[in-house]
């Protein structure tokens, strides 16, 4: 099994979710994160004091998939999350050793 972590624009979340569901993915977890990268943050000004806010709000999606669905998932995300502008985000893939469904105790790909 693989873990796909995708950092995307927050307002793309619904599109990406739909794309993943279409690609046959049935579960996923989303986190609110703040990202630092090529995309610039912004400055805020309070009573003349300027704050540079370098972190940009992003959504992070974690999807654990069976190996054979990995490519589908990646493609789905790529298609739905791309705008072509700096700040579209990244996808990171890593290995998952095991997975368990708490409700039933099922293990492995069964659990997804």
């Amino acid at each position, binding site marked *: 099994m693989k873990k796909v972590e995708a950092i995307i624009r927050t*307002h793309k979340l*619904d599109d990406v979710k739909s794309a993943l569901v279409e690609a046959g993915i049935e579960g996923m977890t989303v986190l609110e994160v703040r990202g630092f990268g090529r995309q610039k943050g*912004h*400055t*805020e*000004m*309070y009573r003349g004091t300027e704050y540079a806010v370098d972190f940009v709000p992003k959504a992070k999606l974690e999807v654990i998939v069976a190996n054979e669905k990995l490519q589908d998932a990646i493609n789905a995300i790529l298609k739905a999350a791309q705008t072509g502008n700096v700040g579209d985000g990244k996808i990171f893939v890593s290995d998952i050793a095991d997975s368990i469904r708490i409700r039933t105790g099922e293990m492995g790909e069964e659990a997804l």
Partner: protein
Amino acid sequence: MSYLRNGCALLCVIFLIGVPLSALAQDVAAPNAEEQVELAPGESEDISTEDGYASESLSPEEENQELADQEVVNAARAGHTGWMLVCCALVLFMTAPGLAMFYGGLVRKKNIVSVLMQCLFLMGLMSVVWAICGFSFAFGGEGLYFGNTDHLFMKGLTMADGSLNYEISSDVSDLTFAIFQGMFFIITPALICGAFAERMKFSTMALFSVLWGLIVYCPICHWVWDGGILAHGEETSWAGGALDFAGGTVVHISSGVSALVACILIGKRMGFGSEPMPPHNLTYTVLGAAMLWVGWFGFNAGSELASNDAATMAFAVTHLSAAAGVVGWTVLEWAVHKKPTALGAASGAIAGLVCITPAAGFVQPMPAILMGFIAGILCFFAVTTMKNKLGYDDSLDAFGVHGIGGTIGALLTGIFASSQVNGVDGSVEQFTGQLVSVIVTVVYAGGVSWILLKILDKTMGLRVDEESETRGLDLSEHGEEGYIWL
């Protein structure tokens, strides 16, 4: 950048003219003052001008009596003035925190500051404009169509050796009246902001509000409340004029219709219909609605311009209509959508309040309940069904609640008015007068708003760019965030 300069320039010009002239205004007032002093004979400092004029040739006894009478008048004025000053505070309270919270809660988090800023800045800007020229344009003189320039820079409202004139109403001074009306001048354009929230340029909003105030609001105000073409009971009025106790036509229809025009011209929010845009802070909206309810007592009961039975009645019907609006909207929603929502209850309260506004001084309690109930139900359909059918994006339902609710109220006033309250009964003629005033207001406010916005669109632009809209107006227009939880 250029639109920014335009905006600044406008403001600066207002001030550059205003400041030196202000000195002038004081000088002009001074002679008046002296005049009055000469005329007023008694030792009492409180004697008002009017009586002063009459007292030149009175016997000492008569003079004594007059002084005593004057004391009674002054005693009553203490009551009226105190009440009206409180009403002024209440109406300001409506704009912020009331409306600011109500509207602020409804937008997405990224635009909360922009909404608050619109309300707060208008509190500043419109008040200054009102003092400089708005009041004079709205309430100056006897013209059928427009005020005059007699009261520019509050001339004639300033103090002449301790006394303020009592021309407009015999119960409170002209200055009290002017402040009270000035609070209306703030909230009316602030209501419009609900329509183009989350995408309007701040600079254009500011300039539009000033122009709209002077070109749309002041005339309508003059027509209805200062003897103009829609004034009730004037011979020169169209169709006998309209009953509009506290601003159903002047405030709510005018702003509601302009809001509709504005949201059509500026276009839908990006992602409207596809992205979810739920209220980011419903607690603000509910609390803001409650504050509006409280403040509205100043708005409606204060419009009696005195603390008396009629004000009490206006207070009572305002309360009951709001209450019935809550019940109407909520119960209907409960039946139709299976759940009673807090947003529904809040919206129903506002619908009821808007609807009773023109009627507040003319109807009895039970009809008021009926009016609120009807407004709750019809506004519910307006913002749920009608808006979706017609497809415009009135972000915070400024038209759906104020335009529709105001129209319902104006028309029903023509039906439910009771002569026992204020000498006027509902009748076909009265209904016609109401209808004509609604039509005139809709056409004028809508038309002029359309022209104004078209011009502003060509010159400054109405709308922020896409990047700014996505990021939110808070950051792009104001460089601030509403909440920083970290």
